[in-house]
């Protein structure tokens, strides 16, 4: 938006806006790092992550004496937790990102469409969402396990289908409210089609809320994937994901806490980064709020307060 040719001087590009914000830029760096791990990790550390050493199990973190790879300790099979953490990022992201994106895309487009048109389309859509929500997703998983072969694609499908109603309902609620707004009426008077109106007016307004939900949904998907492995539909060893590491380390929470805690922290870190970035994006994408991000850090609160009453 700010990149349009009409942007007057003084406005800043999104990237430099991001650079000004310490928290948001840290979050972005974390996500980029995780992405990098996901891409190159398996190539660099793939063998190290599966190398067992039954004589060096459950080494606590910082057991550098046993080798640098045991900086985060070893698991119950003597494998390097650090290496597994890096390599697992790949599998984790290849499940979580498509699952979240799929449910986000399908759910929000469907929801915006339903809310925009209201009437029968809306109520049928909402009843479908009710139906999906009424099914325990585990049942779906067991069915997939029995009828299809367990695979990454099926895990993604199960997770995505189960989460679609969340976005569907959220997008529907906001879209239904927006479609009665005057500026949408105005767009109609130009002859703008419904999809174009949705794209231009509904989508940008609904997106921040959807992103907020999607950001925290990340962890949900990652953890659900781990409970699917209990049924046999999850990631199968020797592949590894954070969810699987958490699930396996769970049994040892009391004796070797690091096995479950580090992947847990990785999940939390990813989710928190995504959430902080989503919060920042909400502000950066809202012209009414963007100015706050351009303020110097100190005294921000006071200025806001004064401006608020003015």
């Amino acid at each position, binding site marked *: *938006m700010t990149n*349009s*040719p*009409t*942007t*007057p001087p003084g*406005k800043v590009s999104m990237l430099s806006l991001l650079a000004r914000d310490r928290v948001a830029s840290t979050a972005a760096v974390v996500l980029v790092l995780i992405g990098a791990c996901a891409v190159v990790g398996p190539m660099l550390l793939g063998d190290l992550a599966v190398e067992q050493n039954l004589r060096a199990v459950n080494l606590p973190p910082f057991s550098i004496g046993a080798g640098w790879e045991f900086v985060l300790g070893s698991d119950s099979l003597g494998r390097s937790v650090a290496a597994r953490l890096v390599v697992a990022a790949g599998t984790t992201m290849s499940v979580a990102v498509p699952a979240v994106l799929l449910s986000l895309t399908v759910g929000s487009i469907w929801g915006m469409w339903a809310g925009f048109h209201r009437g029968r389309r809306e109520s049928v859509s909402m009843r479908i969402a009710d139906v999906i929500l009424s099914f325990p997703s585990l049942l779906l998983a067991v069915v997939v396990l029995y009828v299809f072969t367990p695979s990454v694609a099926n895990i993604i499908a199960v997770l995505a289908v189960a989460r679609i109603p969340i976005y569907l309902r959220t997008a529907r609620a906001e879209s239904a409210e927006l479609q009665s*707004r*005057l*500026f949408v*009426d*105005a*767009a*109609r*008077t*130009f*002859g*703008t*089609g419904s999809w*174009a109106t949705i794209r*231009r*007016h509904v989508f*940008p*307004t609904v997106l921040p809320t959807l992103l907020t939900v999607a950001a925290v949904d990340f962890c949900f998907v990652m953890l659900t994937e781990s409970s699917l492995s209990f049924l046999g539909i999850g990631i199968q060893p020797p592949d590894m994901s954070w969810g699987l590491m958490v699930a396996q380390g769970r049994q040892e929470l009391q004796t070797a806490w690091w096995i479950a805690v580090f992947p847990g922290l990785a999940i939390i870190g990813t989710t928190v980064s995504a959430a902080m970035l989503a919060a920042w994006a909400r502000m950066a*994408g*809202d*012209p*009414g709020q963007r100015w706050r991000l351009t303020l110097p850090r100190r005294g921000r609160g006071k200025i806001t307060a004064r401006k608020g009453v003015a």
Partner: protein
Amino acid sequence: MPDDETTLLEVGGLTKTFEVAAGASGRTALRALDGVDLTLGRGETLGLVGESGCGKSTLARVLLLLERPDGGHVRFSGVDPFTLRGKDLLAWRRRVQMVFQDPFASLNPRLNAAELIGEPWRTHRDLVPAGKRAARVRELLELVGLRAADAGRYPQEFSGGQRQRIGIARALALEPDVIVCDEPVSALDLSVQAQVLNLLGDLQAELGVSYLFISHDLTVVRHIADRVAVMYLGRVVESGPTEEVFGSPAHPYTAALLSAAPSLDAVREGGRERIVLTGEVPSPVDPPSGCRFRTRCWLAEDRCAQVAPVAEARPGEPAHHAACHLPLEPVVAGAPR
């Protein structure tokens, strides 16, 4: 009344009913428009006045095809826009535009002035070539009295009057023949109102656009309109050239409205007593029989309840129609102006 050559817009017998929930009993019909007849000439400004809830805004929405009427017809240069589809409809859309009452709600706060004004072109792609849009936005901004440098600013950074100017510029972007102005100044401060009204007048002079100007403010209408139509409970009760209607109203309701607006000197000088209407506007869910106004009319007789009056031209004023069984006498000649 403008002749066929110059008639741009013609509305006849327009009705529109809404279904509303009415308590536990079920749904009831709310008759927002009940046989409305109007015409609008090329380059003309028709003022449409009436209390809130009389159906003015519904009429505007029907004219912009935001609502589909239950009965009656709309003709725009002889064409019924409700029969249009696809390209033809899009071409029609270009000719009729609207300026909304609320300059806060009618502008998407996420778009800046340039994007707002240029929004229609994203649908009507061939109207202004992409390369020339920025220049055209600057032109339009200046045309409505804003600075070209304001293009990158967002609605919330403008004052109410400035926003309404953006709304007008957006309506002008498609170079329409008619602009329906739905209470365009009622949300603005008095001083700003005048500026916007003058702007609208100037634009008309410059571009030759017609206005259907909806307002509950008689002062404003008198200021801008060539002709006026007065609505009451979904019907037009009186219409005619502004001077004739305001100078000597034929319908008691018009007279009452004028009387309630003390700043209109004509009425006071007309020597009439101040008329104070009693009671609320009856619910459009269950309107009075016969003449809609009879429940509040101080002249009402039995037949007012039985027969709905039809619009008739006033003797000597062929363009001045009123739907009343007991029209008021014209004000004595020699009234000012």
